[in-house]
């Protein structure tokens, strides 16, 4: 391939990866520069094969993708500082979704080898592949967080670990009211149909709990939600978080995740199958969020303890700096 063809082909590849408005301009400039570089090398080394020299020149210049990237300002979707937490959150999230899928699979024992492979197929095309929405969702969240940090750098400097002691009371009070309303709707879901006096019987049937769920798991689910509400109310009244309420929060996040997971796998929640499927899908997300939330808060609590006492153990003797509680 002639040296000039090499350069033209290379420049075309670089240009293809550039924004449309820059392509023609950079392509003309880059072609001219590479030709002059090649002429310079050939003039400095008489007898060198121009094609070989062109190969060496382009190899040293970089791959077309690398070169195109250098012509643009560096922008990251997920910042290097977030890389580790993104990977952990992705892996844990997928693991939780797959675990729930496997539990559902095991609960329906296969009667034959055919049934087993059918179940495997159902798992793979169900929770297996569909779990990949989770890292995609995380990419959007991390990209949004990265954009917000760039847009409001001052707010980004505020330590998330230190800031949470004091709360916005009106906002928390609103949260308590919203949570109370939410629990009321949980206990009696068909209350949402009250504003619609013309709602037909099937609508009420769609929101009816399964009898078995109502007489067993419902009590535990509602109890955990009431405990969450009580914690929120306590913090609202006190006006701040302290180490005790933070520990209770972590415990409740874990408990919420475990209880909801149990409610999902132990049987139907709603009598109507479509409602049951939809609610279980939503609850699966909530389970993942609760468990991740508990993990993150536990990690932050340990960091807070480390910063205060110089040790990761919350009750170990420290430097004498008083805890906010």
């Amino acid at each position, binding site marked *: 391939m002639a040296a000039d063809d090499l350069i033209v082909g290379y420049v075309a590849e670089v240009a293809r990866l550039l924004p449309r408005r*820059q392509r023609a*301009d*950079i392509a*003309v*400039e*880059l072609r*001219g*520069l*590479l*030709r*002059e*570089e090649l002429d*310079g090398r050939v003039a400095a080394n008489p007898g060198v094969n121009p094609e070989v020299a062109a190969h060496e*020149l382009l190899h*040293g*210049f*970089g791959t077309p993708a*690398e*070169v195109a990237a*250098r*012509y*643009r*300002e560096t922008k990251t979707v997920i910042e290097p500082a977030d890389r580790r937490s993104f990977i952990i959150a992705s892996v844990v999230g997928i693991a939780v979704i797959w675990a729930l899928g496997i539990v559902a699979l095991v609960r329906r024992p296969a009667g034959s080898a055919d049934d087993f492979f059918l179940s495997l197929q159902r798992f793979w095309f169900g929770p297996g592949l569909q779990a990949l929405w989770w890292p995609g969702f995380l990419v959007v969240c991390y990209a949004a967080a990265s954009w917000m940090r760039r847009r409001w750098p001052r707010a980004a400097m505020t330590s998330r670990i230190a800031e949470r002691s004091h709360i916005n009371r009106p906002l928390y009070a609103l949260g308590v009211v919203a949570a109370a309303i939410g629990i009321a709707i949980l206990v009696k879901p068909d209350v949402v149909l009250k504003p619609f006096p013309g709602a037909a019987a099937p609508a009420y049937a769609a929101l009816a709990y399964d009898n078995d769920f109502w007489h067993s798991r419902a009590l535990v689910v509602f109890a955990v939600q009431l405990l969450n509400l009580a914690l929120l109310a306590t913090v609202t009244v006190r006006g701040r978080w302290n180490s005790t309420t933070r520990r209770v929060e972590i415990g409740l996040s874990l408990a919420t995740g475990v209880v909801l997971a149990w409610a999902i796998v132990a049987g139907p929640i709603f009598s109507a199958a479509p409602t049951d499927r939809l609610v279980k899908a939503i609850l699966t997300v909530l389970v993942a969020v609760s468990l991740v939330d508990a993990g993150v808060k536990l990690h932050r609590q340990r960091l807070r303890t480390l910063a205060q006492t110089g040790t990761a153990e919350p009750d170990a003797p420290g430097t004498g700096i008083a805890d906010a509680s």
Partner: protein
Amino acid sequence: MAELEAYERLEQELRRGVVVLATLSQLQTLRYGYELRQSLAAQGMHIEEGTLYPLLRRLESQGVLTSEWRTSEGPPRRYYVLSAEGRRLYRRLTGTWQELNDAMNQLLKGGDNNGR
């Protein structure tokens, strides 16, 4: 081998830190990419073509340089020069460089004394 790799990596970091200032220093007058690279190399500042040419475009997009096409001397070439903002930036960066240079000379002298 590991030491050589570490040296090459850190030396590249060191050079990367001065590439912009070196480039700006040679753009008080209109120059095109190849000519600029040859001029820098002749004065001991070797910058890879794959680094310099995209850098010129990025500096232009940041408003530090302005450019124009010229075809009077053969094939079309894009000539770059410091913009008004670029000249102010260059003066500030030069001042910063002098301070850093003085500080480094002090540190290295002190480092040499400690090493004896």
